[in-house]
């Protein structure tokens, strides 16, 4: 690269960002990105398990099971907010 190009604002920003990435640790950042894929795969696997277990009769049970954490979460959040 030419010295005159290093003074360019956009190129400087680009290099600064890359430097920050290397200082933080590239492996850690790549792992964080990969963990999103892992979580998506986990959701798919759980969904496949559910699909294989649930039939026409067992939908009410699935609905109840699925609503418990949802209700618990929303109720606790609402109560904590109202308590201030």
């Amino acid at each position, binding site marked *: 690269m030419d010295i005159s190009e290093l003074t360019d604002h956009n190129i400087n920003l680009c290099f600064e960002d890359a430097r920050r990435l290397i200082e933080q640790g590239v492996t850690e950042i790549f792992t964080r990105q990969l963990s999103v894929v892992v979580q998506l795969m986990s959701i798919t696997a759980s969904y496949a398990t559910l699909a294989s277990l649930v039939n026409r009769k*067992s939908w009410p049970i699935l609905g109840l099971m699925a609503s418990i954490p949802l209700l618990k979460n929303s109720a606790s959040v609402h109560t904590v907010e109202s308590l201030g």
Partner: protein
Amino acid sequence: MLVQELLKAELNIEQGIAGHLIQQEVVFLDRQKETLLRLARNQMARRELLIFGAKEWIVRGYTELSELMVRLTDPKSVSDTLDLKETQAQVVRRFFPQLDTGFRSLIYLFVAFNPDYFGMPISQLTFLETAVDGIYASVSNLQNYLSDKLIRDIFSIRNLFECINFKSKVARPKNPATYVPHPNGMKIQAKDVSFKYHEKSQPVLRNVNFTIEPGELVSIVGYNGSGFPLKRR
């Protein structure tokens, strides 16, 4: 005085009615608990209930939930506590986990005693519960990961690859001059060098010309503030 006595009497009646209702509730819950225990002790109950003490777990979950409901609906226990907010916080901390366990145990009971109705045995319900919890945990983790930091990281990675693949736009000359290193080092040559600290100030250097040959030793002499460091630079 009469008004106060009337109010007191009304309060007593209300407390009496509330007490009576709570008593009825307690009797009802006790009856339900006995039925559950009877079912749990029944040797003819499904075999799955015998595994890992599932019967005891179901009955304990239900009992804890019912006892908590009675405690919460009892006005005496609430009025004894002065700090209402602290009571509410305690309720949130203790009530929700027990409510969760209670509901889960109820679902297990439904399936345990009516497997044909719901089309699944209790063992299958365990897998179903694990899958549902897995989905919630994964979604929660995903929410934590999908922050602005992640998006910023993606841009940083893109920038890193751009830096690696960066190609200079400055064209190289066709016949570049070759650098011939001198055995004693470099020659330093200054031509018409002028410098001012500020635009309006007097120049400290004006049209300075000199050449220092390789290997030559030069000393600069002058008054304070006459620009030695500048010349050294």
